[in-house]
């Protein structure tokens, strides 16, 4: 029997492209099809662009209900699709929204979920093995699934973006009755963030609890400006000492620089 499809989804379309490249590898290994689920408002062009990135199918729905980025409308689509097809693997972008969506979807499908997986393998029975960091960075766990679909979230910058190819995916327009969100967004405030996004920085100079005074970060800033980098801190400095509004690490910004000091 042919394996079910591999699905890829993120509300962040750049992240969708990154996960597509790993999705391709897994789909090829299982000799099955790779599909991207593209949901949003006024995103037809983006969907057409993603269709040119070595993917077999695009499940596409353009609806104003996705504008507020709340979880329920996404869940409606996933539940409808999962009832029609039986996916083998579902990979979801690990943003905070994605992590919530994945956990709620897993609960509804009574499926297993591995959050923040950074590596995948297929075992001899064709089941997925996902690697993730546990115990605050002290361990790497290898986790296997007992049933399908096998769901995992993938953090940004884990895999290289999929490259454009000659293949043109079929775009399948969906018409699903969407659930109303039970939460109402009354305001969206931009986060107080630095000019450069630290996730994108090539050089990160990170300070931790050993730094005695906030003023000492001037040295970090100086080094960062010489190297063309970005200063980051660990969670205790951001949260307990309130010196910064964001931090680097498992629960904060995930960085993948070329130089990390």
């Amino acid at each position, binding site marked *: 029997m042919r394996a079910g499809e591999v699905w890829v989804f993120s509300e962040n379309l750049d992240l969708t492209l990154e996960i597509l490249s790993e999705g391709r590898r897994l789909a090829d290994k299982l000799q099955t099809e790779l599909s991207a689920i593209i949901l949003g408002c006024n995103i037809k062009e983006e969907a057409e662009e993603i269709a040119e990135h070595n993917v077999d199918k695009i499940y596409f729905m353009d609806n104003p209900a996705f504008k507020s980025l709340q979880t329920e409308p996404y869940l409606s689509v996933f539940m409808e699709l999962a009832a029609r097809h039986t996916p083998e693997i579902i990979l979801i972008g690990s943003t905070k929204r994605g992590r919530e969506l994945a956990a709620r979807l897993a*609960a*509804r499908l*009574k*499926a*297993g979920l591995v*959050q923040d997986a950074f590596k995948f393998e297929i075992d001899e029975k064709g089941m997925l093995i996902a690697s993730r960091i546990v*115990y605050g960075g002290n361990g790497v766990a290898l*986790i296997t699934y007992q049933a399908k679909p096998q769901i995992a979230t993938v953090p940004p910058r884990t895999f290289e973006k999929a490259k454009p190819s000659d293949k043109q995916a079929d775009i399948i327009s969906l018409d699903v009755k969407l659930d109303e969100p039970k939460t109402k967004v009354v305001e969206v405030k931009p986060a107080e963030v630095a000019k450069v996004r630290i996730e994108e920085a090539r050089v990160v100079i990170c300070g931790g609890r050993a730094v005695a005074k906030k003023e000492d970060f001037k040295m970090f800033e100086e080094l960062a400006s010489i190297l063309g980098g970005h200063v980051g801190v660990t969670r205790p400095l951001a949260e307990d000492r309130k010196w910064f509004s964001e931090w680097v690490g498992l629960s904060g910004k995930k960085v993948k620089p070329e130089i990390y000091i």
Partner: protein
Amino acid sequence: MPRIIVCIKYAIDVSQVKVDSATRKLLTADAPRKISDFDENALEEAVKIKTKYGGEVIVLTATAENASTALREALAMGADKAIQIQDPKIQNADTMIISNILAKAIRKVGSFDIILCGEASIESYSGQVGPRLAEVLGVPIVTYVSKVNLEGNTFTVERRLEDCSEVIMVNTPVLLTVTKEINVPRVPTLMDIIKASKKELLTWTLEDIGVKGEEIATPSIRVIDVSAPKIERKKIKISGESPKEIAENLVKALIQEGVIGG
């Protein structure tokens, strides 16, 4: 007056996990246990809501080991009642099973207005139990909440995401998962600790809440290995006569490795 349930994890203190240097395995069995950090924030917020509006705070945990010490601490922090569902079989439970156990325990507890959980556990930072529990119970959920305001039965909460914060309105009954920024958990006074010793601490078995053997025997995932991560270091030592020379040699080495442009 709100009835608040706080779900906590009796977790391994990750800052005290040691590694067996021969096998690279983590010695988790020897590491001390405590209330998972973010769950303390959830409890603190529950006590704050109770102080303002009255009501009752019930702490709940599903645990393989006896978590009485941690639950006494929760009672000292201001919870009115603590319940542990304790069974050695919970050791191998995944988040699906834990959320099913908690849901059944909550049904036995009776009605509730608010359920508070930490955003994730310190052990695995997976963040699944809160969202899964909300689905099993069929209640709305807001995750990563960093600020709350309750008026009547409507919450206005702030939700902290990567690039923005959302202000969200939601009605009770509701489940919220909270971040560390929401508050600073109190340190109980001696008086609080004495008072806590007289509060109700219950231990329920899986049978007490109607969880059958097969429900706990079939997790959705299985951990096949946990090892300390291997970080390959090149162990290049940069030396020189003066700081200037050392710096020049470092730059040379970095250019050679191709990490910075020449």
